């Protein structure tokens, strides 16, 4: 069976360049980057080359790049590492990834709502700021909707109050410009790099939240994942974005051929690869399974620990009912997708949706 992958916001397949860099580094630079000898120096050299490449991708300085074990760790470092005496309050939004919402909920947090397109109102951020606010965290691009937050406006508010801004930019890298917030989270596996390596760009001091050695300028202890960082650097050398043509064609074909469908977040600025579509009166879960059995990988909601799908908090935050939130699919395109695949996907969707609607009492 042919398989078509439409879930690039979950992860991307590794590029040939990143894979080659990864294996070459594992093979040729076996040292510990902290070691004094030449084995260590060779590893260190490659690590610093990667740091420069990642810094360039985020328009940052190399010493501002802290390599981490991925986006979640970078978000945790940004949030907990920004706390200071008397400043333990965080402002964030209802559409953040759990990698931000969950650490924020360990603290005193104000979660600001969003409009029907998933966008935050900077004035609401302003109203949430308190003297003890340590950090404002607003994602760059929403992983489910693809909508782009007005970060320049949020940043202006943050600067007025002297509060640093953090942005989870894992879905922005390679799709739109990286906004130069004080703290920026990046992840390699969203840009055709390997899983398990990410970075926090820190233009302000952050305190380490795990303890051990003095790696990463005493901000993130632990032996560096040199090969991962090198592959991340290689991925950052090619951040060519996909255009909106295939995504637009997919949305157009779905809306034209399948009744009672609607695109979520279409009224806001969006990155070019993401389509989130509501199929009224249908459970997203059997739709995802039915498509997978036909060779099409798409996603619905977010996976809980067992692997079952939970209704998306992003979709309920933009005003969808729990039922409607269950009825949405996310299609996220990548470099390898073709027009033929998009048309085949809609060909597969149409009868599955029709069959589910015939079964569903909710659809009348």
């Amino acid at each position: 069976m042919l398989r078509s992958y439409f879930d690039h916001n979950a992860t991307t397949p590794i590029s040939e360049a990143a894979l080659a860099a990864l294996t070459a580094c594992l093979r040729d630079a076996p040292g510990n980057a902290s070691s004094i000898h030449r084995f260590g120096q060779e590893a260190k050299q490659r690590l610093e080359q990667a740091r420069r490449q990642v810094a360039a991708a985020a328009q940052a300085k190399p010493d501002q790049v802290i390599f981490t074990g991925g986006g979640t760790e970078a978000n945790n470092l940004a949030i907990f590492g920004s706390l200071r005496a008397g400043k333990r309050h965080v402002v964030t939004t209802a559409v953040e990834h759990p990698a931000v919402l969950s650490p924020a909920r360990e603290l005193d947090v104000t979660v600001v709502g969003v409009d029907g397109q998933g966008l935050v109102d900077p004035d609401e951020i302003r109203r949430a700021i308190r003297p003890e606010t340590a950090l404002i965290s607003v994602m760059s691009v929403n992983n489910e909707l693809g909508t782009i937050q007005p970060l320049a406006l949020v940043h202006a508010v943050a600067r007025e109050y002297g509060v640093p801004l953090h942005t989870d930019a894992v879905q922005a890298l390679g799709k739109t410009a990286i906004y130069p917030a004080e703290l920026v989270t990046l992840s390699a596996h969203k840009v055709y790099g390997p899983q398990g390596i990410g970075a926090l760009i820190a233009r302000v001091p952050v305190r380490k939240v795990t303890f051990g050695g003095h790696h990463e300028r005493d901000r993130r202890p632990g032996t560096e994942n040199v090969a991962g960082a090198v592959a991340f650097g290689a991925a950052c050398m090619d951040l060519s974005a996909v255009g909106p043509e295939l995504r637009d064609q997919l949305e157009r074909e779905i809306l034209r051929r399948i009744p009672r469908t609607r695109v979520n977040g279409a009224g806001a600025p969006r990155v070019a690869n993401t389509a989130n579509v509501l199929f009224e009166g249908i459970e997203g879960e059997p739709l995802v399974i039915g498509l997978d059995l036909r060779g099409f990988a798409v996603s619905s909601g977010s996976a809980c620990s067992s692997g079952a799908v939970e209704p998306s908090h992003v979709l309920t935050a933009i005003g969808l009912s729990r039922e409607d939130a269950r009825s949405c699919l996310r299609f996220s395109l990548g470099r390898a997708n073709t027009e033929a695949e998009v048309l085949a996907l809609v060909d597969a969707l149409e009868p599955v949706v029709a069959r589910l609607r015939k079964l569903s009492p909710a659809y009348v």
Partner: protein
Amino acid sequence: MSKPTIAVAMSGGVDSSVVAGLLHREGYPCVGLTMQLWNQRRLPELATDKATGRCCSLDDVYDARAVANFVGIPYYVVNFEDRFEQHVVKPFVDEYLAGRTPIPCTLCNNFIKFDQFLEMADGVGAEKIATGHYARIQFDEASGRWQMLRSADTTKDQTYFLFGLTQSQLARTMFPLGGMLKPQVRELAIGLGLPVAEKPDSQEICFVPNGDYAAFIDAYFREQGIAPEQVSGQVVTPDGEVLGEHAGVHHFTVGQRKGIEVKRQKPEPLYVIETNPVTRQVVVGANSDLLRTDLAVEQINWISIAPPVAPIRAEVRIRNRHTPAPATLTPTASGVQVRFDAPQRAVTPGQAAVFYSGEVVLGGGWIAS
């Protein structure tokens, strides 16, 4: 002729794992599905160290996935938490509060496994479903009906919980273990090399840890903000004499002897003979007060025979562990009136009465009074 695609309900236990392995070996295209019914992170005060054998635990999902990968069939976890709460957990609690003793497994079979799960199977393109239940299904040419029969392994028979299956559900359901003995199933699991072959059987009601219904309901009340004094009441005799206090009618079921606290001891042992949800009284009496000959059964589903229009003879089972006892069933406007040949102990409203003719399940319904 190509074989139909089958959605196998996989719990991670030995039985449903053998079903998946067998059907795959016989050449059926299979899709393994695990229903996520209950979030075990809820009601944390009920948490026990023993996490295995509890339905929907991550360990069970891990096992089911491992079996599906081993067998080589596609596998998914599907989220039924909202539906399970609506159709099983809430009615389970409400029934207890209404002075009846509910059977969550039957509610789950009627409203989840053979209804919503069948719909999920439709959704993913499967024509039939298969489960690891111990019961047999066969088509009777003479009557044109799907019939249900007790399982070959009489100690494992689950027909008491399956009386609600309709003809259209039976037509699309397979119970591949119905004709086997449990030791054979274990042997098959070992023969197939299944990674769960040595896993112990689960015994308890899946979402109730340690089978402690009352503790579950108390915890559920706390989560829902229901105060304990809203369910507590008096322990009384049939004559209305107050013997003591109790912490909620859901702690008691008809025939129960344990947990009755009275201020004045009675000469003979006390048993629960009735719980009254309106007065919140638990009525206690002697063992002989529990014997009944007549009961009314409602909401009947006839399986192997068409609804009778005249009295019929059958063996009637009023609890899962009850040996079916001979009785005469007389049709009424709302169901049937059952008259046992000999009095039976602890007829419990809310439990099911299932009718048998030998090993054939005629049908069943809910004990109203």
